């Protein structure tokens, strides 16, 4: 048996496979890519920005330390035992069948550790799910294939993709789904909860510091599960007020010829059967509300940043950008697409 030759050949196969796998990665340049999906900086569970996440991280740190200690001890015992007793003559093997005291010890000690962990776990659960006291803001979050809708029932605002909230104010979330199950999660702010059809789930979180925190759907929900991003944007109370005041206005009248033509095309076409634009005749409820579309940073579950060029790409052929997108390709003329993109870009 020529082991060396076999290994050499197998190594070649591996190398070839790796090159095939890695080449496209090297060819791709993620930066400076205006048509690449939206990316959030560090959506890490280890970088908490809410009081409840800080609590969860204390629990996680405790587990990490305990698990680390157990890992070192047990793995160490295993390796040392194998090392110490390897290759001994068979006659030296000590014929013991067991030891009841040891059995009791290694039942009891893990039991105590786990009881501690359970106590810590129950306490953290109670803290994270404790009812909100004092002022809060209520939002209704609705999962759709494959984008997130955000409603502020107290403010009469309906938006999508980006959830603006004031820093320091508890946000009470009511979770729904319009179709299949989705998972609502922002690693830096709150643990995930599913949006389950026919169920209303409730949770709450508070943003500690201003910034945009990325999230995405975590419950597999079909073809474009990967392209169902959203973000929570923490802003000051004043900024939130200003934003809300603007969102409560009907859509501004289009400025400029292209935008005017675009509005006409939009209102006269199939767009209105799915989309609402406040203050106009467009009142569809299937797709995202577009009243203040241009106040958002990205569209279609984060598959594109919101720019006029990207809007054109999207309207012209959504499936070219997001294969499973449910928005149909209406086969519009490029001029019409430009006009509609111009119109939508005015919806600040």
């Amino acid at each position: 048996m020529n082991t060396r030759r076999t290994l050499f050949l197998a190594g070649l196969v591996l190398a070839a496979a790796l090159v095939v796998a890695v080449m496209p990665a090297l060819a791709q340049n993620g930066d400076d890519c205006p048509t690449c999906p939206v990316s959030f900086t560090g959506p890490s569970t280890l970088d908490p920005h809410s009081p409840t996440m800080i609590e969860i991280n204390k629990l996680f740190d405790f587990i990490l330390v305990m698990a680390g200690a157990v890992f070192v001890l047990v793995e160490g015992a295993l390796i040392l035992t194998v090392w110490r007793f390897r290759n001994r003559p068979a006659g030296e093997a000590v014929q013991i069948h067991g030891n009841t005291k040891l059995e009791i010890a290694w039942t009891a000690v893990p039991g105590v550790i786990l009881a501690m962990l359970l106590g810590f776990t129950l306490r953290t659960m109670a803290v994270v799910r404790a009812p909100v006291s004092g002022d809060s803001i209520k939002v209704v979050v609705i999962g759709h294939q494959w984008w997130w809708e955000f409603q502020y029932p107290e403010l009469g605002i309906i938006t999508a993709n980006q959830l603006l909230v004031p820093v320091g104010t508890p946000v009470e979330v009511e979770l729904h789904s319009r179709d299949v199950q989705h998972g609502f999660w922002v690693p830096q702010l709150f643990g995930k909860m599913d949006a389950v059809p026919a169920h209303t789930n409730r949770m709450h979180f508070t943003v500690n510091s201003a910034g945009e925190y990325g999230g995405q759907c975590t419950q597999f929900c079909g073809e474009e599960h990967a392209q169902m991003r959203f973000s929570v944007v923490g802003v000051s109370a004043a900024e939130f007020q200003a934003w809300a005041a603007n969102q409560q206005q009907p859509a501004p009248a289009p400025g400029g010829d292209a935008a005017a033509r675009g509005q006409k095309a939009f209102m006269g076409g199939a767009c209105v059967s799915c989309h609402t634009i406040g203050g106009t005749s467009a009142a569809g409820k299937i797709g995202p509300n577009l009243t203040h579309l241009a106040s958002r940073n990205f569209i279609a579950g984060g598959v594109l940043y919101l720019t006029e060029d990207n809007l054109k790409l999207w309207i012209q052929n959504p499936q070219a950008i997001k294969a499973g997108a449910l928005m149909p390709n209406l086969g519009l003329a490029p001029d019409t697409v430009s006009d509609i993109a111009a119109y939508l870009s005015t919806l600040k």
Partner: protein
Amino acid sequence: MATAASTLPASRPASGFMSWITTVDHKRIGILYLYTTFFFFIVGGLEALTVRAQLTWSNLKFIGPDVYNQVFTMHGTTMIFLFVIPILAGFGNYFVPLLIGARDMAFPKLNMLSFWLLLFGGLVLNSSFVLGGAPNAGWTSYAPLSTTVYSTGSAIDFWIFGLLLVGISSTIGAINFLVTILTMRCPGMKLTEMPMFVWSMMVTSAMVLFATPMITVALIVLFLDRNFGTLYFSVAGGGDPLIWQNLFWFYSHPAVYIMILPAMGIISEVLPVFSRKPLFGHQFIAWSSVFIAVLGFAVWAHHMFQVGSPLSVDSFFAAASMVIAVPTGIKIFNWISTLYQGAVKLTTPMLFAIGFISMFIIGGLSGVALAAVPVNWQTHDTYFVVAHIHYVLFGGSVFGIFSGLYYWAPKMFGRKLNERLGKWHFWIHTLGFNLAFFGMHMVGLLGMPRRIYTYASGQGWEVYNLISTIGAFTIALSVLLFMINWVVSMRSGEAGGNDPWGGATLEWSTSSPPPAHNFDIVPTVHGLNPLWAAGEHHAGEQPHA
């Protein structure tokens, strides 16, 4: 002129294709299981490589979402239902009768049926690739995603039918194992003194018997919803999608133990033989399996901590899930104690058995982390969970399976696998495994959800994914080495004789491969490790009495 002999049915052919098609010999059926399931392992492995290639770096377009979702669904479904569960049943088929000194399984024809149902279930499932597209709703196929509203076409129906056949196969097999083990042990073999692999198969079979009907029901109900207009999971019709999750996990969490207990049984055979010591704490290892099996039915909703259950429900399932770590720990401590003060011989099966313990420790610890509900809210449905399941199912079950293949190949085929290639296989396998899966803990904590076909750049996920992909191809290399070893050793490997390892259990007392009737004289045994106690001559060295 009829003679008495001519009225007997024609005997089955002894060799050739037809002999394998018509066989009811548990050993041949076992080998059919092994080759069939190993074939599906390769299929599932290629699917895994496809997934890994696509995720190597951000924003790749190697395959699109449509293909990706089929491939990852089929990877999970294949590895669980067509590889790990049935290959362990394959070992059971071959070795349970031999280990208990029986001539065959209790119901040889049912045994045959189990195999063919498995094969056709697997073929039905995989035929979907060329008949309109493979299932694409994940191996969990949550409703309502898996209902006709959101999964048009027939892909999910292929999934249902394939799994129904496999489930029936599994159930029939479980009954067969239980009856065989309970009624056909050779004289002198007490239930509590059976070889640990047999004990594990008994406990596993009991789990299969109680758990599998639940997924059978779930699959039938889903089929009715999809094809006959029932509304169990339809929100519009007053149904509830969470019924699916409860039914599915009521089977699929016990399935985790169905996949690990027999592998634990295998290494509990291997460790004593290559330590030249009896298994430490035999009864504790045995009863901890029973404890795991019972408790295994009370932890299913730890897969559902994020569906919005009341805290009281989550608390119960958290506690039950943590408790399961105790019997698992008992096993690990007893295995290490088996090695302690032994004469440890690092053969390939032993390396894989030790690798099992070593990797399973990591999977067990991440499992405890996942049982802590708030941490689960953070890690559920991320790559952290993907890391966890692979440390228990690959680091555990698959290492155990390879340990068993190296250990028992000389019994099944009369030739040992090449030890040198075997050790190369082990080390490359272990390296690749850790490259592929350890980083997934980290990238999960960094927020990467599972089941996504692509991810944006700039989130710090690329390097971990690149390493994972390199690891996956490294595993593929090691499996390739194993297959080369298998093919070469089966033709020209070292002859093993009846007992190449100095084994303690009955299979080593008969020829390799054993005759159709297994034993010329049905053995009588006393106590654990009958061959060591009997002081028979072995190629291996004899431990002290």
